[in-house]
């Protein structure tokens, strides 16, 4: 069956997440939950001098939520907070189906999730890590939820 949404990039990040581990030195931690489907992650970052020095996630969720969080961390670690926020905005734009091919290109591996725009049920899974990061950078302490 070729026409599955579960492409290699997703499968790989889900199976072998590079960033799924505790982060002892973290100075920011936020739980993100997806109440309607039970995805539940804890995102941790170490931010210093306005730059995301380290990052990790833990928790439980579907392949999409896990792969998306892992891909996100790949992309934002080492970047300034503003850049992470810009990428996040771009990612959300893609999920809503509003990105040009060039913009999707810019999202590197996260572009593997572009088809999500046709799968409303899974949007929240794809967005969970990103949304949690945004809320965390805004200073939120209560668990972030993708319910809107």
């Amino acid at each position, binding site marked *: 069956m070729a026409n599955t949404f579960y492409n290699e990039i997703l499968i790989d990040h889900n199976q072998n997440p590079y960033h799924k581990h505790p982060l002892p030195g973290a100075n920011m931690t936020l739980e993100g*939950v997806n*109440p*309607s*489907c039970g995805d539940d992650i804890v995102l941790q970052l170490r931010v210093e001098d306005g730059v995301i020095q380290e990052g990790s996630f833990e928790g439980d969720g579907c392949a999409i939520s896990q792969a998306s969080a892992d891909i996100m961390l790949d992309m934002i670690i080492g970047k300034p907070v503003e850049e992470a926020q810009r990428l996040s905005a771009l990612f959300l734009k893609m999920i809503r189906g509003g990105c040009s091919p060039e913009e999707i290109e810019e999202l590197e591996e996260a572009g593997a999730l572009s088809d999500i725009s046709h*799968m*409303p*049920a899974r949007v929240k899974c794809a967005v969970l890590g990103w949304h949690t990061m945004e809320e965390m950078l805004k200073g939120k302490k209560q668990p972030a939820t993708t*319910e809107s």
Partner: protein
Amino acid sequence: MSHPFRADFPLLVHTDIAFLDSAATSQRPECVIQAEKEYYERYNANPLRGFYDLAQEATARYEGAREKVRAFLNADSAEEIIFTRNTTESINLVAWSWGLSNLKKGDEILITISEHHSNILPWQMVAQRTGAVLRYIFCREDGSYPKEEVEAAFTGKVKLAAAALVSNVLGQEGPVRQMAKLVHLNGGVMLADAAQAAPHMAVDVKALGVDFLAFSGHKMLAPMGIGVLWGRKDLLDSMPPFLRGGEMIDSVRQQDATFAELPHKFEAGTVNGAGAEGLAAAIDYLSRAGFDRIGDIELSLTRRALSGLQAIPHVRVLGGTTAEEHHGILAFLVDGVHPHDVSAILNEDGVAVRAGHHCAQPLHTHLGARSSTRASLYLYNTEEEIDRFLESVSSIRRKMGLG
């Protein structure tokens, strides 16, 4: 005689009764009946739950209906639209959730004497349980609420005010905007009962300046079993959920739970997806028809009916003397003949009207009438029906041996 809407209503096409009881429930156009049918034939799944395509489609349609209601009410956000069963449940939600947790001994609840029981009994319950006092503003004989009297009724203690936009007995508009302003001076909240307004006129929650607004689908061409509560987001956010159960939660542990965000927090259990679909179709139908055109038809029929009744000896119409004050609702008395007998004789002549207190007993008591007969119109009625109604009313006293 080409009527712009009548052919759309199968029941009216198939029978030959003059249906003049739309204030109780309206008839439904073909497109609404069809919308529910198609929902079951093509899109049926439990909305808000499954991840498969059909369930997604059902969810999208349900949320699409919510958005349609938002636009219909000119509300800020679809999160402020709670689907309920009917106006009664909508008002109860506010009473049980907002009322029980915000009112206390010493507070006052202020409503008008022309409210429907559904906008009285929930407040009696709240008053009994919280120790708040339930007070009334009284209308004049013609059903009007003079501004000074409304103002005088507002003590600083009024924390909740509630009134119908249109009375289901007199057809008169209630002092909703004024009450909203006054209650806000106390930091209180205003609920508008739009059950009789939503079918007939544009209802704009922002222009009204109210905090909650309730209406029923079944009175505005939609199916039974679907109604709406609109509430200001900050208020709804602050309120505890009312009915508890599936899909209004974030997470559930043995001893406690956290609740979902708006609007789902207030929609416990399986929702009425087909009903919402039907309501969306009804809103579309009303938009296509246009409230201007609907209002013109209704006003001209109301004029004919009102002036006809005014010309019949021993008949008294409750409320105002002009058609503009009635919004298609004419409650009347026939001297010496009980309203049940009036409606029975009208029924024998093929005219369907309601008799009784129309769930507004305190108003009837206030007006010195135990009950009345009520004819109520909608966009599908015809002049011929009004004439049949008037002719039958003229014959009543004779038939009852009153010459």
